[in-house]
């Protein structure tokens, strides 16, 4: 589907984002929350990578860390060939136009005291040297691109509906012609009818401007709609990464299977026969993850080795990566094959 020889636009290697925990009288560091723990992936130009996972698994932190909104603990992030993992101050500032972000809560991500023109124009003020007229022209252009009436330029964010606010946020992200946009659950706070509009807008813009997206969401159906490849996160790690169709039709990792089995079927006949994999227990604390595989406490197919060794994130089929002992070379190939077929039986009842 994509030119494999071309260098990927975004490369992430071993990204770690730990937040220190301070406690006690002297605020000493007593531990760390491993919000993102050693994740690696690449995104090619023009592609959409979906990043899914349950709440609190580190999706948003990963997105923010990639844009260097945090000082990352370890790892390499390369965007368009430039290593941004150690850039600081002015150097980082000059790389900002290439990468932008669309936020989850359109209400909170717009300054209530600025007009729409001011909000969309802020990136232009920071990075582009434009005359007043050029700036206004560019703002109108962007408002046209995201489907906002030009008359709205003088209004304030509280005068808009959620969908319109998200359009303002998208226009702001587009202002500097970025190559890469992190969409941090851009539709989670919107009505279902508006969700489709915003997703379609994002797709249109991708086509028109050749954008590359990292689409963070916990809406599996929406990710299936928009993404080319999908990465599944659990407790700060990517457990499975693969092309959308392969991953949805034949999920390999037990967690992915459980996650996909929770997606309701529109057809009531199929819905009645759908077997859910119900996970027991709670997600362990990211400040104290279990020994071995992070998922071993809840995995329905847990093996002794899972509690001892951390599984590698390896390529099991072309383009398909999974971090699970069921698929390591040491394990019997047959078991792995069985697991995969069983898995597809369990989940793909609806197909």
């Amino acid at each position, binding site marked *: 589907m994509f030119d494999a020889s071309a260098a990927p636009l975004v490369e992430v290697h071993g990204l770690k984002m730990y937040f220190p925990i301070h406690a006690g009288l002297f605020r000493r560091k007593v531990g760390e929350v491993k919000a993102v723990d050693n994740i690696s992936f690449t995104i090619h130009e023009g592609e959409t990578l979906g990043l899914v996972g349950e709440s609190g698994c580190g999706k948003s932190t990963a997105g923010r860390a990639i844009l260097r909104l945090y000082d990352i603990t370890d790892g390499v992030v390369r965007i368009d060939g430039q290593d941004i993992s150690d850039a600081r101050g002015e150097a*980082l500032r000059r790389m900002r136009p290439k990468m*932008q972000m669309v936020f989850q809560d359109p209400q909170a991500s717009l*300054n*209530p005291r600025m007009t729409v*023109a001011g909000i969309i124009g*802020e*990136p232009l003020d920071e*990075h582009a040297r434009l005359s007043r007229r050029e700036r206004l022209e560019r703002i109108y252009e962007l408002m046209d691109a995201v489907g906002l009436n030009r008359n709205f330029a003088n209004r304030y964010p509280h005068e808009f509906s959620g969908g319109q606010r998200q359009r303002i946020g998208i226009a702001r992200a587009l202002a500097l012609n970025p190559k890469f946009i992190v969409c941090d659950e851009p539709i989670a706070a919107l009505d279902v009818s508006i969700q489709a509009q915003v997703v379609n807008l994002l797709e249109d813009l991708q086509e028109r401007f050749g954008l590359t997206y990292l689409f963070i969401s916990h809406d599996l159906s929406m990710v299936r709609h928009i993404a080319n490849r999908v990465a599944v996160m659990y407790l700060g790690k990517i457990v499975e990464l693969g092309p959308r169709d392969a991953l949805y039709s034949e999920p390999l990792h037990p967690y992915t299977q459980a996650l996909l089995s929770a997606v309701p079927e529109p057809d009531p006949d199929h819905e009645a026969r759908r077997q859910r994999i119900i996970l027991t227990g709670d997600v362990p604390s990211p400040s104290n993850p279990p020994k071995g595989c992070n998922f071993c406490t809840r995995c329905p197919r847990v093996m002794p080795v899972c509690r001892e060794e951390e599984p590698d994130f390896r390529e099991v089929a072309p383009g398909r990566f999974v971090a699970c002992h069921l698929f390591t070379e040491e394990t019997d190939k047959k078991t792995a094959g069985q697991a995969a077929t069983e898995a597809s039986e369990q989940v793909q009842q609806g197909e």
Partner: protein
Amino acid sequence: MTDTMPSNAELEAIRPPRSQWWDVWDQFKTHKGALLGAGFFVLVILAVVAGPFLWHIDPTYIDIRARNQGPSLAHPFGTDQLGRDTFARMLAGGRVSVAVGVTAMLLSLVLGTAVGVLAGYFKRLDGPLMRLTDLFLALPLLPLLLVIIMLFRDTLRAAFGPEGGIFILIVFVIGITSWMQTARIVRGDVLALKEREFVLAARSIGTPPRRMIRRHILPNVLSPIMVSATLGIANAIITESALSFLGLGFPSDFPTWGRLLFDATDYLQQYPERVLWPGLAISLTVLSVNYIGDGLRDALDPRIRGR
């Protein structure tokens, strides 16, 4: 009607974004109290600035034969126990009191806002700056004032003349001892504001900290700043009178509203109207400033605007 709609829309589309200050002014105009307050405050300023040029009686001129008189055409507010014209003294005193109030308020506001924003925004400065604030809050005010005035009165007098020197000293003393509340409130608001997503969005754009503070933080902490500003003027005028009363402020024959008030309290039984004039002037000025602050706060918040 349907025909004219698109052309209207087009006309509006050509109109460039107008300055936000016009919106602010439009909203301010709708707040009757604020307009009234602004009118009165301007009147007071005009009276104390231009008044002494029109009312030719010298506020320090002693006419012992005309002492303790009630209101008359020659002396609209009457005279005091030494026969000085109270109206002239009110005008002269107002000039000093309003000047002290406004400058001291500005000083404490700038100090408090700067400390609050820096402490809230930069984590590294938070500890030191807030401990400094606690230190100032814990300082016993009166001994501090005594020491400051003892140390600096004579040097300042020599440099700026007796009135100018004391003016600088009093403004400085009031400003330096009243910024802590503002700093604490502003710091709290900045801490909450810093975690909002629009600040994160600005960071992802690459807005440097100084513009972040100016563009995103300061406009959003304006309400508490405005409230402490209006309270600050009142506080400064009253502190100045207390200082004068203690003999630490302006010389005793130099009129200020606070001074007039305290002088008049001795004659409260015989001539109650003498307390009334400075008292009324202080209260009305403070009230008008409060209303202005109220109107400004509403006008500066786009969410309230247009209601």
